């Protein structure tokens, strides 16, 4: 039995396969969340308010669900060894979907409690700056899409696990500067955050363009893999390239829109308050 999805030299079948490592990984994520909320809440949660909002629990659960879907059979199995298009879906889930949900699911007091632990505060503040987050996201996304890296690591469970975790790390690093509690952990202000997320859309264009416009399959692993559903390797690769931009970018654009409207609402509220203050001053 395999513990993590990796490329396998056998024809694809729709027979379910168990990957206990994936379950353990998801269980650890959920367990850590429950432990943090229960163990740290008495000492760190603000008195008189909820320990966690139901929406935050839902976000975290959706984040864990996204990781579970990306890692387990069939998406994980197909993406790690058969179809590059599913490999890209995995990357989207690992780097763009799950991290913001997981980060949003953790209440601010829990982040502050973690930041109070030795070493963590410096680490979290360091990655709340835009450059480290962006660079780590770029590095993991480019590095794990190099043909040699994919062809070398994907056939091994540990290598495949390393790729998946690198995506998750890159995704967490990308999203942390726009989600970290402000001001103590240094979250970006709204307009810089929009520019930051826009910058995150640029570099994925490189692998996406190579995949979309190459005349030959780039990855030996996916080219020589047993075919699934009669999809040709080049067709699959082009789909992967398109998915990376056509699905990946809108996620970032959605986040940019949310931040923009939040900024607009804040500005409007500030204007309204200012007008109200002026009116009050005139009346008095």
């Amino acid at each position, binding site marked *: 039995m395999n513990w993590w999805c990796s490329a396998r030299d056998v*024809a694809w079948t729709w027979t379910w396969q168990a990957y206990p490592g994936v379950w353990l990984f998801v269980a650890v994520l959920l367990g850590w969340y429950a432990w943090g909320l229960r163990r740290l809440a008495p000492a760190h949660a603000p008195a008189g308010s909820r320990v966690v909002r139901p929406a935050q629990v839902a976000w975290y659960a959706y984040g864990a669900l996204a990781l579970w879907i990306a890692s387990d059979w069939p998406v994980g199995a197909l993406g790690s060894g058969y179809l590059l298009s599913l490999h890209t879906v995995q990357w989207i889930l690992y780097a763009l979907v799950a991290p913001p949900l997981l980060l949003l699911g953790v209440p601010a007091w829990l982040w502050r409690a973690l930041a109070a632990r*030795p070493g963590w505060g410096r*680490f979290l503040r360091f990655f709340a700056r835009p450059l480290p987050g962006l660079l780590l996201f770029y590095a993991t996304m480019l590095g794990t899409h190099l043909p040699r890296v994919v062809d070398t690591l994907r*056939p091994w469970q540990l*290598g495949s696990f390393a790729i998946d*975790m690198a995506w998750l790390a890159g995704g967490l690093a990308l999203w942390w500067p726009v989600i970290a509690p402000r001001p103590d952990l240094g979250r970006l202000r709204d307009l810089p955050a929009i520019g930051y997320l826009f910058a995150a859309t640029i570099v994925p264009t490189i692998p996406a363009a190579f995949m979309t416009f190459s005349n030959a399959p780039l990855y030996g692993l996916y*080219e020589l893999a*047993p075919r699934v559903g009669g999809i040709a390797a080049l067709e699959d690769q082009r789909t992967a390239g398109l998915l990376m931009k056509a699905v990946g970018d809108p996620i970032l654009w959605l986040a940019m829109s949310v931040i923009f409207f939040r900024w607009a609402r804040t500005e409007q509220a500030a204007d309204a308050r200012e007008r109200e203050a002026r009116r009050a001053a005139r009346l008095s």
Partner: protein
Amino acid sequence: MPATLRSSAALLALALSACVGEPLPAGGGMELPTALPKHDFTLTATDGRPWRFREATAGRLTFLFFGYTSCPDVCPVQMAGLAAAVRELAPEDQRRVAVVFVTTDPARDSAAVLRAWLDQFNRDFVGLTGTEAELDSVQRLFGLAPAVRETPGPDGAYLVGHAAQVIAFGVDDTARTAYPFGQRQTDWAPELRRLLQVPEPPAAAVPLAPARVAFPEGFAVAPLGGRTGAAYPVIRSSLALVDTLVAASSPAAESVHVHRTERVDGLLVMRREDALPIPPGTPLRMEPGGTHLMLGGLVRPLQPGDTVEIRLQFRLHGARTLRLPVRAYSDVAAP
């Protein structure tokens, strides 16, 4: 950095270091221990007609592969690789390449199934089928173990174990390389270009002309009667490769064919050859009692002292025109 993060980084480093080493199959052909001649066989093509392998592919770069259309792994990958590489060639070079797919699963691979499957790769790929006995014998002909049908599963589906390599016959109709599974599209393309290359003949050897050996210009023979004559040119190929004479014609005759005279059970038997290999270096001498060009339906009687023009079509050299003197039958016939 906290201890947990340090542990994670160490785990990642361990993962990366533990996962290097075993590369994917490397591209590149496998040299055959001995050159493999292009054995002849006849199977049924997807249009239902008999298809003679050697004749139909003579002088063309030919890739021969045994597989089946339900194959989940090797066959579609090998065909896709070849198709992509062929697509990259210039149209004139594409015509010099033949890809022949022989099914190892005749029960499921009907002509229509074969054709539809091959068409997704290249409409010019040839699909062949036959009886199981015929297919087994063709595989043995090329030194391959016959394919084995595995036990069907509960749904009736089954796999077929078969040779995974593609045998490549060069333009000299000889195979020196086989390509095991693992060739990538980027590996196939340079291989095709390499295999298609025909060395330029030395300038002194162009144009191809009958060599002056026993009969310097070759000769034609005036028949004693009737409308059938014969011609005996001497052909020296200037190439380092085996060329093939594939057609001949003459304004003096309605048809020109290569015939070979053989002794069978004490009797001389004449057989028509559709393609005649021209060996490199050694001149090919056509002689009475051996290989000759049969001029059928002479349009006028040949007279000693006349000249007969014959146009020969070679696979590699292209068309060449020879003019042969006509000799009297009595000067040529053995005493």
